[in-house]
């Protein structure tokens, strides 16, 4: 009381005694300071808005203003392309140095306008597509503006189309680039190579060692593993929107040819096909009698019938992509966009991105010689394959053809993969359409190995403080012939494990690992001490399993019924009721709508109404999950659980101290695409600490929680990976009328 009074009296003394006026000054001062700070902060933390408003003039220039570079007539010309170039001979990887992200750095030379001695421009400065291409590179992760750190150089000299180029002067322009060095690590993009009359299949501009990303390579000009074959971009890709047509939907024509410039002899062949097969073949040509103002590129004619192009391509199952003057044809892109299967007739043509794309899945290649047999070749392709090809064709277009950006990035990715092959993108990533990528599973343990039995397994016991029960488990497990090591994970930080002398003496090495934190996921940590492939996870209260059961479980695991998870028995919780139907035996998941349950129960009803996944542990005829209270699995899953568990599941499990086994089941099923296997009939555990006290209610909350887990995990995985099966593994002569003594595993418990 006194103190508080004193405080009240002395209180005001703590506040500076000031007049209202002074106080006003102070408030003003502080608010000014505050405002100043805020203003500074805004200026500091908003630099881009400032820049874009102030530096905008620098960034946004007109192309007419680019610097002019005069090329003396005598300036050096690079040598012609070196056909023997390979990555290890002509490419300087030292420039790519070490990059922890395994990504090459690409530099783009600034844009210049090149003129010859007479001041005549060498070429038009830049085309729309090349500008898009360079923009795409500059916006990508590959880009660097530091020329000294770059590994790949892209000149801004536009050589996409060779036609308007002055060959010699363009070459001179290349040679004067600051880091040209015989073209080493320089990348040129060209889509229309060659010129009349003989149309070379690669860019004619002398380019020495520069890499060429070219459209229309033939086997004779393409330097395998050095050049990149790219598509000829079709401007229609951006102009016309062709909605995807479902593969297999009816198309009017079986075979269609839409190209305008076809050699007369080939046109004769095609017309012969049309004459023979009438309605199912359509050969289109240029329209001769179009009214003014109609874009001739967008129309095709057959006799007097006029068709919209490229829409008409969607009406055909197969579309001919015939060699013209050049091997690479832009029509390929249109055909793919229409989901029409390209029939490529261009001998020796290197298909776009053939280094990584599997064209067999999306196209039919017919030799020019066999053009007249084309129809029968195509007819032999079954409908299902055609549908897959149509889907694949459309996917190739979407991923690699549809924009200049897609083409540029795919090209850089290919070069990147060559330089960092150990970080390369796989065949599946390049080729599988998203629908396949989503549904396909690649089992990480796909190879059935027959490892020596002698290797045995490592048993991992997770324990907290039930020492007595733990010792009994250790003693029991040590009787299993194939056990090679026992690992006790001591999860109690407050208590030291018993002294070494107190542990049971067993014939195999026993190791105790102390953990830093009491977490459930410690059970699934990939300890260095695990030397075997097979791991038995066993709880410290599972004491009733016979040595025969465990040994059999190990053999099931080894005998490749499944390489991965073999589950042994399931665990009963400590609060288990004696009531049979409450035994937590194995678990099961259903789509609640799809199942009608024979037995009534609160959980089921609740579930029916909520329409959720539900966790059930009744005795049913199906299994989809196993408890990891006693389960064999491959040690690789420990690594997956610890480092590759999707989403926040791992933390969630540690926080809730529950469902680690469900998480493991989800992980294994998701990664392998297969069901777990339950071994032997055992479903119940005798556990010494079991009591019937408040079993029911605890049990109920437990079930609710576990159902929640399943719903949570299913949403994180985005799917329900668990598979339901109706079988379990028993020894061959289990319960057969056969002398017990002669059976390999006579001692198999029944429940």
């Amino acid at each position, binding site marked *: 009381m006194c103190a508080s009074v004193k405080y009240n009296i002395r209180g005001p003394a703590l506040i500076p005694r000031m007049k209202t006026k002074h106080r006003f000054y102070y408030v003003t001062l502080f608010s000014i300071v505050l405002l100043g700070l805020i203003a500074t902060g805004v200026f500091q933390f908003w630099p881009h808005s400032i820049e874009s408003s102030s530096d905008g003039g620098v960034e946004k220039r007109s192309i007419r203003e680019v610097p002019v570079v005069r090329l003396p007539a005598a300036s050096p010309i690079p040598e012609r392309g070196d056909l023997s170039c390979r990555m290890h001979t002509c490419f300087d990887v030292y420039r790519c140095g070490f990059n922890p992200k395994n990504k090459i750095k690409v530099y783009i030379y600034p844009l210049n306008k090149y003129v010859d001695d007479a001041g005549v421009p060498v070429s038009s400065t830049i085309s729309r597509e090349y500008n898009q291409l360079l923009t795409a590179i500059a916006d990508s992760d590959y880009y660097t503006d530091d020329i000294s750190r770059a590994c790949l150089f892209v000149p801004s000299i536009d050589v996409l189309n060779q036609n308007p180029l002055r060959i010699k002067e363009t070459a001179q322009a290349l040679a004067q680039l600051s880091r040209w060095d015989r073209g080493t690590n320089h990348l040129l993009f060209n889509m229309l190579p060659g010129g009349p009359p003989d149309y070379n299949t690669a860019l004619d501009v002398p380019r020495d060692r520069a890499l060429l990303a070219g459209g229309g390579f033939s086997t004779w000009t393409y330097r395998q593993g050095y050049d990149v074959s790219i598509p000829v971009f079709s*401007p229609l890709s951006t102009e016309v929107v062709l909605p995807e047509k479902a593969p297999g939907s009816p198309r009017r024509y079986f075979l269609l040819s839409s190209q305008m410039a076809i050699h007369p002899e080939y046109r004769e062949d095609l017309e012969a096909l049309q004459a023979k097969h009438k309605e199912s073949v359509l050969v289109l040509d240029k329209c001769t009698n179009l009214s003014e103002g109609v874009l001739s590129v967008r129309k095709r004619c057959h006799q007097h019938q006029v068709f919209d192009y490229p829409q008409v391509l969607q009406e055909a199952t197969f579309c001919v992509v015939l060699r013209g003057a050049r091997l690479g044809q832009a029509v390929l892109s249109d055909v793919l966009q229409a989901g029409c299967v390209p029939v490529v007739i261009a001998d020796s043509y290197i298909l776009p991105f053939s280094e990584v794309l599997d064209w067999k899945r999306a196209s039919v290649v017919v030799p020019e010689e066999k053009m007249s047999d084309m129809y029968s*070749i195509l007819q032999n392709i079954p409908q299902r394959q055609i549908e897959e090809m149509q889907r694949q064709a459309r996917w190739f277009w979407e991923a690699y053809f549809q924009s200049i950006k897609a083409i540029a990035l795919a090209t850089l990715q290919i070069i990147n993969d060559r330089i960092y092959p150990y970080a390369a993108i796989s065949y599946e990533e390049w080729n599988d359409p998203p629908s396949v990528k989503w549904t396909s599973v690649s089992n990480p343990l796909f190879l059935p190995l027959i490892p020596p039995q002698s290797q045995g397994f490592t048993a991992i016991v997770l324990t907290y403080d039930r020492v007595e029960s733990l010792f009994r488990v250790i003693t029991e497990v040590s009787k299993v012939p194939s056990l090679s090591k026992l690992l006790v994970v001591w999860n109690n930080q407050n208590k030291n494990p018993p002294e070494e002398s107190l542990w049971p003496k067993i014939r195999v090495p026993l190791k105790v690992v102390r953990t830093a934190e009491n977490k459930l996921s410690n059970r699934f940590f990939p300890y260095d001490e695990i030397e075997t492939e097979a791991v038995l996870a066993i709880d410290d209260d599972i004491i009733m399993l016979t040595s025969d059961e465990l040994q059999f479980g190990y053999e099931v695991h080894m005998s490749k019924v499944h390489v991965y998870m073999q589950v042994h028995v399931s665990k009963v919780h400590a609060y288990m009721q004696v009531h049979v139907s409450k035994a937590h035996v194995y678990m099961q998941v259903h789509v609640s709508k799809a199942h009608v349950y024979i037995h009534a129960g609160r959980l089921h009803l609740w579930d029916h109404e909520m329409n959720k996944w539900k966790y059930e542990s009744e005795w049913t005829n199906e299994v989809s999950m196993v408890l990891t209270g006693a389960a064999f699995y491959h040690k690789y899953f420990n690594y997956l659980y610890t480092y590759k568990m999707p989403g926040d599941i791992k933390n969630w499990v540690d926080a809730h101290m529950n469902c680690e086994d469900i998480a493991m089941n989800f992980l294994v099923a998701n990664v392998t695409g297969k069901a777990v296997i339950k071994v032997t009939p055992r479903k119940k555990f005798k556990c010494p600490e079991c009591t019937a006290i408040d079993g029911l209610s605890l049990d109920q909350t437990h079930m609710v929680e576990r159902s929640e887990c399943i719903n949570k995990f299913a949403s994180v995985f985005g799917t329900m990976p668990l598979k339901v099966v109706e079988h379990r593994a028993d020894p061959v002569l289990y319960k057969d009328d056969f002398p017990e003594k002669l059976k390999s595993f006579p001692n198999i418990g029944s429940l």
Partner: protein
Amino acid sequence: MPLWRRKSFWLALSVFWLLLIFLGLFPLRLAVPPRPLPGRSQGWPRWLDAAFLRSFFQPEALPEDGPQLRQAPRGSSCTWGACFDTSKCKGNLLKIFVHSSAGPTAEAHRRILDSLEGSRYYALSPAEACLHLFLPSQDHRGACGPLPPYWNGGRNHLVLSLYPAPCTRLGQAMVAEASPSSDIFRPGFDVALPYLPEAHPLRGGVPGQLRQHSPQPGATLLAVAEEKGGWRTHASACPWDRHCEQDPGPQQTHPGETLPNATFCLIPGHRSAASCFLQALQAGCIPVLLSPRWELPFSEVIDWTKAAIIADERLPLQVLTALREMLPSRILSLRQQTQFLWTAYFSSVEKVVHTTLEIIQDRIWGASGRPSLMWNSPPGALLALPTFSTSLKDFPFYHLQQGSSPESSFSALIWVGVSGEPLLKLIQVVAGSRHCAQILILWSSEEPPPDRWPETTVPLAVIEGHRKASDRFFPYDNISTNAILSLDVHSTLSTSEVDFAFAVWQSFPERMVGFLTRNHFWNEAQGVWGYSTELANEFSMAFTTAAFYHRYYHTLFTHSLTKALRTLVDDTPACVDVLMNFLVATVTRLPPIKVPYGRQRQDAAPLVAEGPGPRPEPQPLAQDCINHVATRFGHMPLVSSRVRMDPVLFKDPVSVQRKKYRSLEKP
């Protein structure tokens, strides 16, 4: 207000204003490091007039005059389309004729010939062949020996040499030689072979040496192929001596033949090191090829990035870092792929030669050839015949990769040697299953089939057989489902058993699911294989008289087995079971699956005695079978198992009402 206070006030005010102005003019770049935002380039400007740029592609200027018929250059720059005449292959089937050079046949030639004889490619006369095989003689280096007749400039010829060929360029002939130099290799035309050791087995071959999927913790990281053969292992990763002077590391040099025991095997790029490549592959040591100057074997079809690492020798430190930091999941899959490839394509001379021919066959097939997945995932292209179906979903092996699941119905194929009462009963039982789609009766009896068949809910068809044992596994067009339940007229099953077995098969579509099984064993005393038919703790074969398996195995049985084996089966019908089990085990490398069979005790004996053939076979003859077939296969593919798949509540002491397959438990 005291002066000092006012002063300090103004001072503070002006300082802050100054600071503010100063910072406004020269913003500190500390707050946000300048970094390009996506969508805004720093180095490449956004042109104001970008919209007015012309397209590179002017459709009006399409070359109209250009198109010319081009004759492909011949000779050294041959391509498949230009230098191989596929029209000579009737029905698009590759048939080969071997021209062996005159004089004594070299050992290498004899082995190639042995591996071809009796295979499905073998043509007896040059007229029916569309590919002529020329084996250049090994003796005189440089000279190719006399060219065979029908040479025709080398057109439709394959020069096959298991060693680097003495003469590499022979007109328009394709060259298949060991580790060709990548400078002269013609992709899509030549075939690159592996460099086989001298004593490579002809058939079968040693399986891969990998014993563990994942490397042991603390296993040796690197082994380096040495000039003189053999391997040098490094505990620490520093194979390039100049780069790791500070840490010489414990080294051990292995003598020539031992396989390296390490996670990665560094193989230098020069051609002479190519022989180390196969060693590493067999040992499951992931090959790390440093700028190889030779073409990797079968590179046309094998995706080597899944099994090996091809790196640039000029970036040693980067490669080492990448190896050290490689994720366990990647190591796991690389290691397994080495083993798969070794077993599928390299472990014997026969496999190498057949793979070469299959590559050419695939080229002939073109679009209907094997997709990449078939070559690069188990069981491999030699065991996956694209003639079966062009859709991968039809095969038993690719369900996981394709994200599909096996069909939910089966066809029952009942083989009838003698007609009688049991047949009608069997039809009723099978038709009672709700998964049964059709019943096919393979009529192999002397007497004509009855005119009337019992009324069934599913379609029933009769196929007239040729009374040969191999008939049973012919790929009949009538079979409409992928699952086949193969039955003998004497099989006694219950509908419940059929249903359960089918449910199990759906989980294991690539394996055989059988009711009755037997086991094989190695008879030490006599040095032969034997088998037991009585009840045993183990089994390795399933009787095909009551088993589920995939329709694909009919195709494989009929088209991939050599003529000699099929003749053997027709002569001794009891062998048909053994042969089928060998075939499936070669493909899966796993044991079949046994399901419970109620009437085992009563019926096992007669079923076995009856056998698949028309007359009971005495045991010794059957024993002969297994030895015969094992010799033909070159190895023993059968794997034993002690596991049986039972229904989940099988014989559990719970109410029968709960159980789905209760009739399985009737005594």
